[in-house]
């Protein structure tokens, strides 16, 4: 038992100091493999320089793991002399112009893409970066989204606790039944009459018909209420949360990474429909981001399969027959009602979340609002019109005169007219 406890504590401490541990093992492994003295200071400096200058074009890892340029590691560094690397990083185009064979070969291999020059780096800076690149394993990339992994494990814990609660209830109930049974056995052995809970309750009810009546009135009222509520949900899709063909997480993209809604739904400012982004919008980032923390690799691969992109070579496949991604529509107004996104976003100045709820916290999107007429009308009665809007300059002036500077709600300017939405 004691050993078991110790083991548990050890595991916990490893979890708590994961980052520290990682660094430490990195350092140790580096010292062992290279037999040269590099202080941890160098690697940390190198890391910060790398992430703020190099990471947008280079991964750390095998050479095939290309981003814009090759993946960096000891294999790339061992190929070239230190002096060559210094002059390449400080100004690669100068080196190419001087006719250096190695430099020209790299330039040709990467489709004549010029590497940004870094003349501000000292030889020491470059040494630090190289030290970091040689040491860093690929796991560091994976640690960047630790929050997400934590969140997921939190969720699984809560479902576990419900399970534990239910099983403990069942165990308690069966204990109670066995207790009664044991007591009955004792009573029978003594020659007494055993207790029977069910017949006892039955007898009590039969002698008191008012209880039945009271109970049935309760049941009938309850049923009426559920039928009423149920009928009101006919045609209302609030809470609809379908599984989408790609497990796209709004929580990750809009929430944790802070991508604006308009970036992908670029129609919301211009048209009736907010638009589902076409796959080329995904590719703005996912040309270079090919894997995620949980199911990213398989889900991002679905975009590539749809449009014919080869993530190994980062090129589009010629003559590929593209297959549309069949997203499931969640918000759907019946044809008898007209709704325009541009009107609400531009003139109304509404936030997306007003109607769609906290999308940036949803792992799987669900319909947050009922989208019923009553719900529309309620907002039109309460929302104030922004009279500073330039687009309706002339009209706004008239409204302000008519209402003598009082607050103007949407219903004051015809927001409740039938023909505004039904025609």
């Amino acid at each position, binding site marked *: 038992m004691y050993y078991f406890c110790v083991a548990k504590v050890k595991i916990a401490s490893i979890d708590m100091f994961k980052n520290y541990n990682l660094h430490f093992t990195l350092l140790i492994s580096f010292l062992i493999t290279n037999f040269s003295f590099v202080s941890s200071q160098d690697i940390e400096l190198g890391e910060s320089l790398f992430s*703020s200058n*190099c990471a947008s074009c280079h991964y750390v890892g095998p050479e095939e793991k290309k981003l814009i340029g090759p993946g960096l590691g000891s294999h790339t560094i061992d190929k070239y002399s230190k002096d060559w690397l210094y002059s390449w990083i400080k100004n690669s185009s100068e080196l190419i112009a001087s006719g250096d064979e190695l430099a020209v070969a790299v330039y040709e291999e990467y489709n004549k893409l010029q590497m940004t020059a870094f003349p*501000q780096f000292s030889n020491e800076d470059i040494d630090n970066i190289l030290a970091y690149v040689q040491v860093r394993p690929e796991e560091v990339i994976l640690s960047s989204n630790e929050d997400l992994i934590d969140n997921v494990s939190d969720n699984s814990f809560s479902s576990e606790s419900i399970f534990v609660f239910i099983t403990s209830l069942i165990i308690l109930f069966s204990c109670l039944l066995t207790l009664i049974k044991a007591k009955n056995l004792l009573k029978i052995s003594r020659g007494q009459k055993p207790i029977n809970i069910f017949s006892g309750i039955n007898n009590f009810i039969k002698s008191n018909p008012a209880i*039945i009546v009271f109970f*049935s009135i309760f049941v009938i009222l309850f049923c009426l209420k*559920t039928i009423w509520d149920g009928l009101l949900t006919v045609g209302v899709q609030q809470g609809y949360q379908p599984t989408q063909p790609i497990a796209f997480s709004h929580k990750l993209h809009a929430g944790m*990474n802070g991508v604006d809604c308009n*970036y992908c739904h670029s129609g919301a400012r211009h048209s009736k429909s907010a638009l589902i982004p076409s796959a080329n919008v995904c590719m703005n980032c996912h040309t270079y981001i090919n894997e995620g923390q949980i199911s990213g690799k398989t889900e991002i691969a679905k975009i590539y399969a749809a449009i014919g992109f080869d993530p190994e070579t980062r090129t589009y496949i010629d003559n590929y027959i593209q297959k*549309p991604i*069949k997203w499931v529509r969640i918000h759907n107004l019946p044809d008898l009602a007209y709704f325009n996104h541009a009107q609400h976003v531009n003139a109304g100045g509404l936030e997306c979340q007003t109607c769609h709820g906290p999308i940036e916290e949803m792992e799987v999107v669900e319909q947050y609002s009922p989208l019923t007429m009553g719900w529309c009308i309620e907002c039109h009665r309460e929302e104030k019109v922004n009279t500073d809007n330039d687009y309706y300059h002339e009209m706004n002036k008239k409204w302000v005169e008519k209402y003598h500077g009082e607050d103007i709600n949407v219903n004051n300017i015809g927001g409740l007219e039938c023909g505004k939405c039904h025609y």
Partner: protein
Amino acid sequence: MTDIIKLFYSTFIDNKFIILFSIISIFIIACGADGNHPGYQYMPDMYESPSYETNSSNPVFKNNSTSQYLPKNSIPRGFVPFDFDNTLDDYLRAGNTLVNPISYSETVLSEGKQLFEMFCAHCHGKEGNGKGSINHPVYSAVPSYSDSITPRRSGEPMNKLKSGHIFHSLHYGLNAMGPHASQLSQEERWKIVHYVHKLQKNTND
């Protein structure tokens, strides 16, 4: 009083009315939407439009999609084609020849700021310092607009980029940045260019 109770008893309980009632209510509970089930509809023809809607599938076209490419060799009315290719030469040529057709004003600048915050700020940062909200390592080394040291593709540092350079990279993308021509109209891109010029003058990095 007892008569009422008896009446109630005979109508609801003896006739098993109450059981029917509960069964109906259980069925009706299932009308609501939940998970993959969109719920039931009264007169579904009002919801499922016979006309083809934006982004819906469409049997009229060969690829079953309502969203179609433009017919070959045609341009939309009022559209001005961008006469530059996605090459280094044309990038440099754009920088030297293109002039922002939208004249500078305070409103244009504030519109540019809004657009910048929607389409650029998550990578480039609201201040244009390259510190955006995206936490993936690939987008951790975005250069600051006000950087005056590192020479970029044009041969000049970020704070010397010309309007044409910025417009070209918005249209075609540059390095890890993707092309944004499909999300932003030309007019919107030129407004963003105005705002980027303002961010280039930021000094407090």
